[in-house]
């Protein structure tokens, strides 16, 4: 309950307060969000599997985001930033779909 509420409050805060992100970070925010989504779906799947742990979730959430940003940052430094960001998005997207499929199986048994 708190989790859903917190999510909604967070989105509302982001829209209303319009926190100014450092300009260097604006290009990484989409990647961060995709990584976070991946962590989120992974957590839901783990919860349905009964292996969910809030500690694991928190750590994986932030480490996922950090690693994704790091990969893209390094890519930017060596000149393949846009390609690497595409790669990260593709990989995370595949993972999200895999997790979503597992969740679907857990809920609908199909």
């Amino acid at each position, binding site marked *: 309950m708190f989790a859903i509420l917190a999510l909604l409050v967070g989105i509302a805060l*982001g829209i209303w307060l319009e926190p100014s992100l450092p300009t260097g970070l604006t290009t990484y*925010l989409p990647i961060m969000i995709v990584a976070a989504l991946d962590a989120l779906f992974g957590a839901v799947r783990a919860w*349905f599997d*009964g292996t969910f742990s809030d*500690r694991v979730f928190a750590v994986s959430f932030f480490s996922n985001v950090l690693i994704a940003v790091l990969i893209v940052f390094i890519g930017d430094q060596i000149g393949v930033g846009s390609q690497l960001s595409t790669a990260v998005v593709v990989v995370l997207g595949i993972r999200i779909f895999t997790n979503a499929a597992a969740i679907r199986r857990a809920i609908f048994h199909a």
Partner: protein
Amino acid sequence: MPDENEVEARHAADDTQAADAPTARTLRDLARALLRPSASQMVLAATLLVFGIGVGTQLTTKAADDPYATARRADLIQLLDTATTETNRLENEIEQLKATRDKLQSGVDSAKVAQTEAQNRLDSLAILNGTVGATGPGIRLVVYDPNQKVSASTLLDAVEEFRDAGAEVIEINDSIRVVASTWFSGSGGSLVADNTAITSPIVMDVIGDGHSLEEAARFRGGLVSQVQTLGGTVTITQEDTVKITAVRSLPKNSYARPA
């Protein structure tokens, strides 16, 4: 009661399974977990709050800023390159079109010059052939010949003298246009030029330099003295505008062709 029984059974199952493998949960468990908040969910809530703020920020950034604000430097450079290349291409095209336009314009100009030239030639030829009327400064010469002794050769001499003096157009009696092929015949009283009778008094309109033309008629042994010898008189008036309306139809050439 069946609910309680089920819960009991599940608890029992949990107890037995807890040791070896984690239990799979269902949607109903999720709903129950959501309705019964626990302390461990606070970590989840905090993480999701961060996530929510990120999503919200990104949404507003996307909505507020132009698409180039979040674009990568390499992409921007490529966009700039594309724009520059396009600009160069279009500038080249402008240059080419301008050159074409100039060429066409000068073509029009030269065509105009050629046309003016041709028109000038046409005008002078038309005047020379006597196919159009003409106007200009010149003299009006009247020969009074009461004895009717003026001959064709006298007139022909007068015409030749006028031509020598630079006459451009010659007309006799407002009806006969004198051109290259004009002929004179007959003698006193029945003069004919180009099949048209020349009645007395003989009026000659000549376009050219008035002074020269008058001198061409008045010199000793010229037209005036000849006519005076024959007992007639000649009056000459220099005029600023001599209008010549007599024209001549051009015979079609049967043999000659421009070469």
